[in-house]
């Protein structure tokens, strides 16, 4: 019985190669667009991750804080769950850093009578704890300690980065969902066409006592193969566009392997699901 299912599914491709090719092309087109969006979403994520990795809270200390007091403060900040490390930058180290980072202004820094840079504690956060809320919470807590004069963490741009991330996330869900829905509709329509073309065969199957499950199986396999084929066609097309853009316009990263596998399997799943729906509706109608 399994051999019948496989034979009939492949026979359907032989009988209507144009329809099968068209269905696979439609699925490929939908998945191609979803794939391009996937590349864009992945690269937005990569950029945001890079920015996020640089998020830190800097606590500027009063000049009269003693080394013992600073050590005690360092130890206390380390006990905060979100904190990964606390690095002490003395006033002398601060001016050295300024000299390195502000090349060309060495003269101005040398002319100063006194060191204007305060000592500071650079607080780095645990990965996953660098979102705006967590940073705000840590900054507020650090600000409450004695000897801390001011706390800076680039609040404005941090808020913007996280707003951008939220917008990108929402866009991914909305646009990705819309394309997925369009893909499902296209696959469903293609399979309905295939079922319509074989309505007489289905009627005869029922006539001779085929169960609904027996009738469905070749169509499900056909949907799965068509979906898989569409996914495999979409893959080189998406990679081609990625390669061109990465080479000629802006350097991009290719999607993670799991996304690619999920995309291709998603095509197969869509094909099977759309086919199952179309056959079920047809069998209910006849």
């Amino acid at each position, binding site marked *: 019985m399994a051999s019948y299912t496989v034979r009939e599914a492949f026979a359907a491709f032989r*009988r209507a190669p144009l329809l099968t090719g068209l269905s696979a092309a439609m699925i490929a087109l939908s998945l191609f667009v979803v794939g391009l969006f996937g590349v864009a979403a992945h690269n937005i994520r990569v950029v945001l991750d890079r920015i996020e990795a640089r998020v830190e809270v800097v606590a500027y200390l009063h000049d009269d804080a003693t080394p013992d007091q600073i050590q005690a403060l360092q130890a206390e900040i380390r006990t905060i769950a979100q904190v990964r490390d606390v690095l002490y930058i003395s006033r002398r180290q601060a001016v050295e850093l300024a000299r390195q980072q502000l090349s060309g202004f060495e003269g101005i820094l040398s002319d100063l009578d006194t060191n204007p840079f305060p000592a500071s504690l650079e607080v780095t956060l645990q990965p996953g704890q660098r979102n705006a809320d967590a940073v705000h919470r840590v900054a507020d807590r650090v600000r409450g300690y004695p000897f801390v004069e001011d706390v800076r963490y680039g609040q404005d741009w941090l808020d913007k980065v996280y707003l951008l991330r939220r917008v990108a996330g929402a866009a991914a869900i909305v646009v990705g969902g819309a394309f997925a829905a369009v893909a499902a509709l296209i696959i469903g329509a293609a399979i309905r066409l295939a079922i319509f073309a074989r309505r007489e065969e289905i009627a005869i199957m*029922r006539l*001779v*006592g085929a*169960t609904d499950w027996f009738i469905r199986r070749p169509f499900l396999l056909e949907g799965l193969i068509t979906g898989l084929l569409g996914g495999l066609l979409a893959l080189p097309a998406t990679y081609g566009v990625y390669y061109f853009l990465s080479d000629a316009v802006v350097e991009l990263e290719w999607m993670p392997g799991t996304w690619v596998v999920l995309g291709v399997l998603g095509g197969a799943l869509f094909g099977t699901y759309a086919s199952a729906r179309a056959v079920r509706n047809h069998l209910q109608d006849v």
Partner: protein
Amino acid sequence: MIRFDDVTKEYSRAGAALSEVSFRVRKGEFVFVTGHSGAGKTTVLRLIHAADHPTEGQVKVSGFDTRELSARETAMLRRKIGYVFQDFRLLPDRSAAENVAFALEVTGARQSVIRTKVGRLLAQVGLAAKARSLPSELSGGEQQRVAVARALANDPVLLLADEPTGNLDERATRGIYDLFRAINAAGTAVLLATHDAELIRHSSGARVLELDHGSLVYDSHPDEAEAD
């Protein structure tokens, strides 16, 4: 084997197709269902095949109320009922042998069993030499023989035939009728719906049920049926 009890069938658009029809058919009986076009002949066959259900009354086949059957049970019942149509309903892109094999494949029969049985069935209907022919390469009578072979594939206890000779010439009609008679002689009950009065006249001894506007107006052997 078949029992109609006060069966009424109404369609939402066409109205009543059958009105309070009652009859019984015994195992191995040969029955003509006759009447003019629209008399309800096809409706009777569809109700027996569980393709439709009565609006009122009860249809029982082999003791099962067709309305009570699940989808799977309906499929199993249909394997024991062969069905032949006026327009043959063969798959045009498959050979005669493949059309017959189709009815066996749905039951999950093994390929070796299918091959043997298809050969035997095509020989039985006189088409062993045309096993590889497509329906388009066969005459009307030959196509109907393929349809009969397909209907017999699962050793049915009942064969339903809806105007099976309607598209055939006189000679082919006689051949198909003789085939039905032979099948019946082997123990399969046959219900043959036809408005061909000539065919019925030449079939002495067969039971005749006549329908008119959805009502059963004549039953040639009512007492025999009741005895079953």
